[in-house]
């Protein structure tokens, strides 16, 4: 705790309210701004930051990330690269599972990872079978249902009379969507999926296996993708409307200009220039994963983990989850006789409310 010339400035005295024996209770005081009154001495209010940090370290963090994309796009490898360990489903699979499923399955695996005293429970949710069938209509539905089920679980715990101190958070914080590197534009399945899911979860689209595109092709592809997203009114993370202040906006604008990130994943290390780096070795050269001149993996990692992880979680809990809650509570009020209701997202209610029956 540093002591220095800290001044405690009394910025404003707000509304004084009286609560008598029966008086007007429940009025929250309102702030007004006036003169500043700086006094001597150090009170120690800023010690609360340290207290918060201590509490956070003790509690640990939770993060749930979902990967969606056709098989063969390098989803598992990317997860392993992001979290520098074997967190993906494939690392745990037995050989009998090495087949493309007939329907979309949703598999989630949790890991406890720790770095410099910070503990995190990371859950990777994989969606094998997405986009792999001949007829991929409504392929987004099982995923949407899964996300809503997580919201539902959280909601149920929240409205319990006796509820846990810390409600276990299984809500999907971030969904990484893998776009195959065709180089042209988004395919209908991509647009369909992102259009439906951007309303309920934070979507971060990435161009998978970007080492098959040259830099010009990559830029052109990105531009086309952005155009397509705009044309279909798909709001991907970071969403414009949730920028909190000017500072946020500047940072997020920069990110929005770079999305989707063109990534390459690898969990193999090679010797490059005397250093051991993660990369993909080919006959014509080695693609360095963490080299920003080669691919944008580092930007993705920084966005997801080092700078915006808390923000991603906040948007999930205070916006997506709240929207789900509002929808859910309104439905319950207006459909008391158990009529079949169609969700705003098109999924019939009886599928979503999988719990009660």
């Amino acid at each position: 705790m540093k002591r220095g010339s800290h001044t405690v400035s009394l910025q404003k005295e707000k509304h004084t309210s009286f609560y008598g024996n029966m008086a007007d209770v429940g009025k929250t005081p309102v702030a007004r701004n006036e003169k500043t009154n700086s006094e001597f001495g150090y009170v120690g209010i800023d010690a609360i930051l340290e207290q918060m940090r201590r509490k956070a370290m003790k509690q640990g963090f939770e993060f749930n990330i979902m990967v969606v994309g056709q098989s063969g796009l390098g989803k598992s490898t990317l997860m392993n690269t992001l979290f520098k360990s074997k967190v993906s489903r494939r690392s745990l699979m037995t050989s009998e599972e090495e087949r493309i499923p007939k329907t979309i399955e949703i598999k989630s695996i949790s890991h406890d990872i720790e770095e410099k005293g910070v503990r995190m429970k990371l859950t990777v949710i994989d969606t094998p079978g997405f986009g792999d069938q001949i007829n991929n209509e409504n392929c987004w539905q099982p995923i949407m249902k899964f996300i809503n089920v997580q919201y539902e679980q959280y909601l149920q715990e929240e409205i319990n009379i006796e509820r846990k101190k810390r409600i276990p958070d299984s809500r999907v914080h971030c969904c990484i969507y893998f776009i195959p590197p065709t180089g042209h534009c988004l395919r209908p399945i991509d647009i369909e999926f992102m259009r439906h899911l951007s309303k309920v979860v934070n979507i971060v689209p990435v161009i998978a296996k970007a080492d098959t595109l040259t830099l010009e092709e990559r830029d052109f592809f990105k531009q086309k993708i952005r155009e397509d997203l705009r044309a279909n009114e798909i709001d991907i993370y970071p969403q414009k409307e949730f920028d909190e202040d000017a500072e946020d906006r500047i940072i997020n604008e920069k990110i929005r200009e770079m999305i989707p990130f063109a990534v390459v994943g690898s969990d193999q290390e090679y010797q490059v220039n005397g250093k051991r780096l993660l990369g993909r070795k080919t006959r014509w050269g080695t693609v360095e994963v963490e080299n920003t001149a080669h691919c944008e993996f580092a930007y993705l990692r920084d966005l997801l983990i080092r700078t915006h992880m808390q923000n991603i979680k906040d948007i999930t809990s205070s916006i997506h989850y709240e929207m789900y809650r509002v929808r859910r509570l309104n439905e319950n009020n207006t459909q008391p006789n158990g009529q079949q209701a169609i969700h705003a997202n098109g999924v019939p209610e009886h599928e979503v409310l999988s719990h009660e029956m």
Partner: protein
Amino acid sequence: MGRKPFLPEYWLARWQTCLNNGRGSGEGARGVPLSGHVGFDSMPDQLVNKSVNHGFCFNILCVGETGLGKSTLMDTLFNTKFEGEPTQHNQPGVQLKSNTYELQESNVRLKLTVVNTVGFGDQINKEDSYKSIVEFIDTQFEAYLQEELKIKRTLHSYHDTRIHACLYFIAPTGHSLKSLDLVTMKKLDSKVNIIPIIAKSDAISKSELTKFKIKITSELVSNGVQIYQFPTDDETVAEINSTMNGHLPFAVVGSTEEVKIGNKMVRARQYPWGTVQVENENHCDFVKLREMLIRVNMEDLREQTHTRHYELYRRCKLEEMGFKDTDPDSKPFSLQETYEAKRNEFMGELQKKEEEMRQMFVQRVKEKEAELKEAEKELHEKFDRLKKLHQDEKKKLEDKKKSLDDELNGFKQKKTAAELLQAQTQQAGSSATLKKDKERKK
């Protein structure tokens, strides 16, 4: 959920495959080692940054008799002069006066709310003193509960007014707790974190103080009053917290005046026989209080308020309204909608009562109006009757008068006739006498 112990990857993978034979989804979590720097160790920083941007809020309730130096202590704790003059002793009941201030130190913005009990302990009959305090605390919980149960809610920007810490000011009698103190603290201990402090402790000598503290703690224990214990589960602060737990209740002295000691200006109270320095740990426990309340445990106080006291209130309130945790096959959200329904019902009842009262009022007015109309009608009738009577009388009188006049006239006539006759007779008589006289003469 049980976290599995940290195992080398090799064992882990084998064990996991055995466990998950054929199953892909894992229930519990496994620990994996990282082969490089991932970067999520910045999460606490991200969290802290977000909180800094948002600002913090902290609410303190000061309970104690008038004149124990509550406002002065707040001023001293937060190094500022909060507004307000000392309260009088003639309050009819206990009122709670709440002030909110925005303080800032380096980059931390704190919205501090200080709630004072005005008139506590001043009444002759203090039986109900604790009630307004309990009501106030419950109201803040209720407001938060309402917000939490709303359909469209804004919890993250909600100004939390729940009381995080209650400083209970004990008068420095030197003997023991007053019964008012015991009763009040007993009522408050399940609703708020109580930190008892001995106010104006410069009135007690050191030896008396130790005895006083022991007496107070034993009285609190024997009466089952649960005061706030500084948490000892985190190793970084366990030691200092447990030491401080032994120093409760803190004996404090507050002062905003500065006195020159040596070559420094310190906050102190100056007496002819010496100066009590507020920040001198040998003189009083002010520094301990500030350390515990603000610098070490502010966050824990807030957390306890939310996870223990608020949850208890919420549980009791919802159970009171007749909810139970639903079984799997009963309707979900019966809590939400029935709470709303009950509330609407209550509001409906209120409205109905209001309607009823209004109806009754209207009814009464009508009745009164009818009555008045009746009376008016009666009066009119009476008036008419009297008028008629009067007219009759008048007529009668006129008749009488007429007959009288007639009589009078008749009489007058008779009178004039009589007079005429008399005159005639007189003349005849006189002429007759004259004639007689003449005859005699012949």
